[in-house]
């Protein structure tokens, strides 16, 4: 008859970090929430910037150019973030 020994407990020096399970928090819906919150903040700050550019920018060509560059690149980045959520 074979005797059964209890498993020897070996303490882990380094905790198993993957078992923090990022997968629990990272999913399509949580990413969508983060993206929506980010868009809200983006819209508020953009509103403030537009106000300053329109009120104090004095229709300077530099301000108009900056405005165009700001929005084009922002929309590209938001598109990338949205695409990442879609393909996740």
């Amino acid at each position: 008859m074979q005797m059964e020994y209890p498993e020897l407990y070996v303490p882990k020096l380094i905790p198993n970090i993957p078992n923090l399970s990022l997968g629990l928090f990272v999913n399509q819906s949580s990413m969508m929430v983060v993206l929506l919150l980010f868009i809200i903040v983006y819209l508020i700050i953009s509103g403030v910037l537009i106000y300053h550019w329109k009120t104090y920018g004095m229709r300077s060509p530099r301000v108009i150019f900056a405005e165009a560059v700001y929005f084009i690149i922002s929309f590209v980045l938001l598109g990338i973030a949205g695409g990442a959520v879609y393909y996740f």
Partner: protein
Amino acid sequence: MNFETLHLDTDEHVIHEVRKHWIVFAAQGFGLLFTAFLPVILYAVFKILLPAFVVSTETTFNVSTFFVFCYSLWILALWISFFVNWTKYYLDVWYVTEKRIIAIQQKKIFDREITNLRFDKIQDITIDIHGFIPTLLGFGNVKVQTASEDNLEFTMNTVRYPDEVRRVIFNQQNKNSDGS
């Protein structure tokens, strides 16, 4: 350009704009550029120091797509910050007209101060170009002192071509005193 918001007189025009040197803004821009690469550096450090974490995380979900998502939002946050800084830089300006200096201080995005300095009130203008790089790139501090009872001082730091600013203001002040 449309200077309606400055409320100039009908016979008044802007003859010179005084702004800070672009190097001030470029320094902030380089700081943001470095910050833009920070997640990539952190990811590389993680991969070297905790390879098990990276590998096992890759099996639980699509890490590359998640990284693209986080990184695009990170870059967007820096992009917004860049334009907030640019707006503060661009709107911090002195307008020199035939009659006065309109000093606009855009300290923060919601902190704006506008002061008018009549040429007859200006007592002295001091410029200060200090150091190798300011001398090389031609920027320094301009200080305008008024002869009013309060003896106010108006200073703009790291101004582009301060010599020219002083020359324009003195020329206009002389023209005004000759005319009166």
